[in-house]
């Protein structure tokens, strides 16, 4: 068993996560990521709704937090791809997210996450991401040859 890294310390290493003011806490269900409401995250002033790019970035970062929490790795995983589904407009208010690791291989992890606002059972946005995992210290380091999953 590993010690889970302090997630807010990890967030502090990312200027963009700091810019979005993302926070993380651990509750009885696991990692909870929080995107506080801010006027400059709005993408549509008429609705109004948060920008889809802000919610998607938040969910991608929530997946990275879940990976760090479960693997104990402090080296960052690299985003390979992100697939986002927008279910409904996100109101300009606090947004929450939880991620679930669906598979971890030696090199690649598949992680899904959901964002919601007032009701966890009514998500506003879903993502499915693949990440390239950091090499383990001591293992043969960089793979420049063709990768297998």
């Amino acid at each position, binding site marked *: 068993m590993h010690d889970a890294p302090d997630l807010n310390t990890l967030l502090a*290493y990312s200027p963009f996560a700091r*810019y*979005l003011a993302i926070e993380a806490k651990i509750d009885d269900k696991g990692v909870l990521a929080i995107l506080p409401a801010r006027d400059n995250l709005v993408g549509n002033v008429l609705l109004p709704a948060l920008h889809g790019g802000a919610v998607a970035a938040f969910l991608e970062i929530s997946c990275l937090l879940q990976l760090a929490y479960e693997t104990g790795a402090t080296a960052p995983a690299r985003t390979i*791809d*992100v697939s986002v589904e*927008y279910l409904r407009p996100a109101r300009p208010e606090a947004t929450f997210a939880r991620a679930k690791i669906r598979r971890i291989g030696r090199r690649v992890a598949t992680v899904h996450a959901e964002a919601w606002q007032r009701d966890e059972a009514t998500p506003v946005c879903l993502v499915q991401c693949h990440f390239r995992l950091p090499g383990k210290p001591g293992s043969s380091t960089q793979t420049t040859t063709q990768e297998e999953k």
Partner: protein
Amino acid sequence: MTTDNTGKTPDAQPIATPESINRGWPEQLARAMVAGAPYSAALGLRFVSSSPGFGTIMLPWRDDLVGLDGTGILAPGAVTALIDHTCGLAIMSTFGAMAAPATLDLRIDHLRPAAPNAAVTAQAHCYKATRTIAFLRAEAWDVSRDDPVATAQAAFTLNRRGT
């Protein structure tokens, strides 16, 4: 703007009518669409160009948009917003502001990290639209369009009543 040697002024821009705004919408509206959304303005997105079916926007490099301290590489999440907004621009430059596009799904492949301290530019192409859905492809690059940092595929809902 074109110039000629006859001393005549170049053809004036046609007067904007609801139809022309809806179809080939003026560049001022395209610029406003990029500068007017709070998140887009906060990220510093810059309008590059638009034409029916296409939109191009640049994300200038900024140290608070970097993914990880010490790398100087723009965060993938910042590129996500750039691509999403560029898709919206491509739709509005085809169908006008009334189309009110909303992202349904967006899939981004991050082919490689952007160069450190480099701006990223994205171009989206709306290659098919029904009355309610627009389909787009987009790519983003730092140095050369031939060597993208990310490619994307998206579907947007839109409202084409009156077009």
